[in-house]
């Protein structure tokens, strides 16, 4: 693959570089970064016209549904959705069937990722913390790590048992992989399907109290003090108090990181008012104050990562009564546009900081090597236009599922394409 990116605005947090320049890629390797590069005759020339080239984005929290739920998404369709959204890598959660709680499943997912789109998008499995994600016995974490798992989580469900969490933190510390917690105290959330507050009372829907998330994070951080070598990551953080707990733990220099989804920094529980099941997710959409807290925590660095919790479900699965609908929405293709509109335009993040939260930070957390944008390095790049206005159309989503609450929303900022593993894919 020989490509020349003409007049790209190269933004690289690793070197703090931000300049308009040409990038020549030969056989998938960055051959030259400079001005007025003359392309070889066989090279594909992409006129960037000042659009951004940045280190490739990684979404460290997606559900690819394969194996077991291929009617919702497959590794191939999920990778296409990722590529369309500008992600060169994804970490996929283990709530498949069978769960990724065994090295053969981990290896299958990792290998299938290499086959899908000929390896354009890297697929890194997250292994289960417990066998079958049942919370009863530890999964073979070392074997899972050897088979390619980059972290551990029972996501979709919490590691609720405190003794089990303690073991998971201590055991995973031996090989330096993070435990990613879906923070939810299950004895408090049974039957809940939206944030507990004024809107749930008006709608008569069973509520999920924010404290169910907060107390689980607080508990885990207390456990972490006794497992100093462990690394703990909070998935999809959603409340102001949760963020405050993480902020304080970071001041203690505990190894705590966290992520937020685009929907939790964009929408509030008032979006549920129409009973649209595409507003049903776990954790639920919170209040205006919580949304504000997410933005502030992104700005001050308490929140390290933007991850989508991409959760495909079919139309038939979602078009049911609100209480019966499954949790989750697709997110890969709307993440960048939402982040630009909600975070960069109002000044919560600079473009440089946004790119860190979509690339360097998540890669560091899951232990992947940093992406270098320099001559001689393999090209792993996301190309995007920060200022293009577009309207979300669920019919145009590349994901197999269309469950997005953002249909019809005008976003600013869209991926142009990605370059990774010697391949290039440009969006239509």
């Amino acid at each position, binding site marked *: 693959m020989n490509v020349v990116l003409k007049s790209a605005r190269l933004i690289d947090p690793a070197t703090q570089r931000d300049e308009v320049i040409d990038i020549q890629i030969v056989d998938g390797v960055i051959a030259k970064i400079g001005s007025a590069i003359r392309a070889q005759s066989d090279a594909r020339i992409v006129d960037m016209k000042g659009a951004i080239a940045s280190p490739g984005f990684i979404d460290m929290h997606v559900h690819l549904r394969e194996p077991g739920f291929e009617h919702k998404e497959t590794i191939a369709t999920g990778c296409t959705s990722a590529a369309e959204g500008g992600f060169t890598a994804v970490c996929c959660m283990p709530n498949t069937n069978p769960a990724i709680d065994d090295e053969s499943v981990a290896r299958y997912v990792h290998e299938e990722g290499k086959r899908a789109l000929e390896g354009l998008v890297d697929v890194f499995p997250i292994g289960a913390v417990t066998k079958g994600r049942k919370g009863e016995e530890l999964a073979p974490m070392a074997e899972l790590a050897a088979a390619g798992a980059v972290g551990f989580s029972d996501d979709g469900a919490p590691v609720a048992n405190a003794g089990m969490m303690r073991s998971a933190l201590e055991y995973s510390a031996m090989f330096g992989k993070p435990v990613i917690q879906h923070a939810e105290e299950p004895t408090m959330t049974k039957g809940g399907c939206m944030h507990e507050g004024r809107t*749930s009372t*008006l709608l008569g829907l069973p509520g999920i109290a924010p404290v169910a998330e907060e107390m689980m994070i607080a508990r885990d951080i207390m456990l972490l003090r006794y497992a100093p070598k462990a690394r703990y990551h909070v998935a999809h953080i959603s409340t102001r108090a949760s963020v405050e707990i993480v902020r304080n733990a970071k001041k203690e220099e505990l190894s705590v990181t966290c992520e937020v989804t685009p929907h939790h920094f964009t929408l509030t529980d008032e979006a549920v008012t129409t009973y649209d099941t595409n507003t049903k997710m776990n954790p639920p959409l919170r209040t205006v104050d919580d949304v504000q807290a997410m933005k502030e925590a992104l700005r001050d660095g308490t929140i390290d990562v933007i991850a989508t919790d991409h959760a495909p479900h079919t139309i038939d699965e979602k078009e049911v009564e609100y209480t019966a609908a499954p949790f989750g929405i697709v997110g890969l293709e709307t993440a960048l546009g939402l982040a630009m509109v909600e975070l960069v335009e109002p000044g919560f993040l600079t473009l440089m900081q946004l790119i860190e939260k979509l690339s360097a930070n998540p890669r560091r957390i899951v232990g992947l090597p940093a992406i270098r944008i320099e001559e001689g390095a393999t090209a792993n790049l996301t190309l995007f236009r920060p200022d293009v206005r577009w309207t979300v159309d669920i019919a145009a989503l590349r994901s197999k599922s269309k469950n997005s609450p953002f249909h019809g929303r005008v976003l600013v900022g869209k991926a142009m394409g990605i370059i990774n593993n010697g391949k290039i894919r440009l969006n239509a």
Partner: protein
Amino acid sequence: MALESRHLLGLEGVSKEDLTLILDTARSFREVLERPIKKVPPLQGKTIVNLFFESSTRTRISFELAERRLSADVVNFAASGSSVSKGETLKDTARNIEAMKIDMVVIRHESAGAPHFLSRVVRANVINAGDGLHEHPTQGLLDMMTLRERHGSLEGMHVCIVGDILHSRVARSNIHGLRTMGADVSVCGPSTLMPARIEDLGVRVYHRLEDVIPSVDALNVLRIQLERQHSGLFPSLREYHRFFGVTKERVDRAPKPITIMHPGPINRDVEISADLADGEHSVILEQVTNGVAVRMAVLYLLGSSN
């Protein structure tokens, strides 16, 4: 005269004008119900389906009576359980209704928002007969009608809803409707049976009947579901009755007579004492009669606007 909406999904957001129109119309149907021949022709040729996904006897019979007295053709559909356990999805049920050319749907469902879902996928008028913990608008209307008939006007009167507010769609519909009509509404019950931020709906919250009884004009006593005592939300029915039971002894201490209401069915001597339920200030059976009149009014106003 027509209502602003084609459906009655709840009383939240329904204007004072529409509520007044429904209550006034119900009053004239109430007169019809006193006649020897109780049938009138306005919905002749209209087909109404009563879709009851949750068991109910009195609400369904009340609707059916109202429909028949307006000369509509009535079909009943009873099914238990949500789409998940039942096999057919609500969406498919809705499509069937559409295919059978039904004009109006009365739906009761255990899931809040099910009537809203239905109203988006069928052309028929949808009337909510109780959805989850959300609303039960015709119950709210019949309670308002009963109070209005007894007190003349709802403006400025103080109504306290007593009991399990958390699990009550009746409470929510009453709060919205009464507040729009200018009544002063409070709720009283154990703190564990109060929904989050209920005060945001414009009601005062009490945890002692003694504190609210001196100032109320009416007590609307909710049924306490017997199975709730195992939910961990309150210790026992005995303790509930002792502290939140509406008894003659408590009510007699009030400076003026208090109208006693209950949406039924009554657990005698649990949430309300038997002597009070049968006493001179009880309007519980009037509520039942008004229920038919109010449902006739809603069906008439929605059904004749098409």
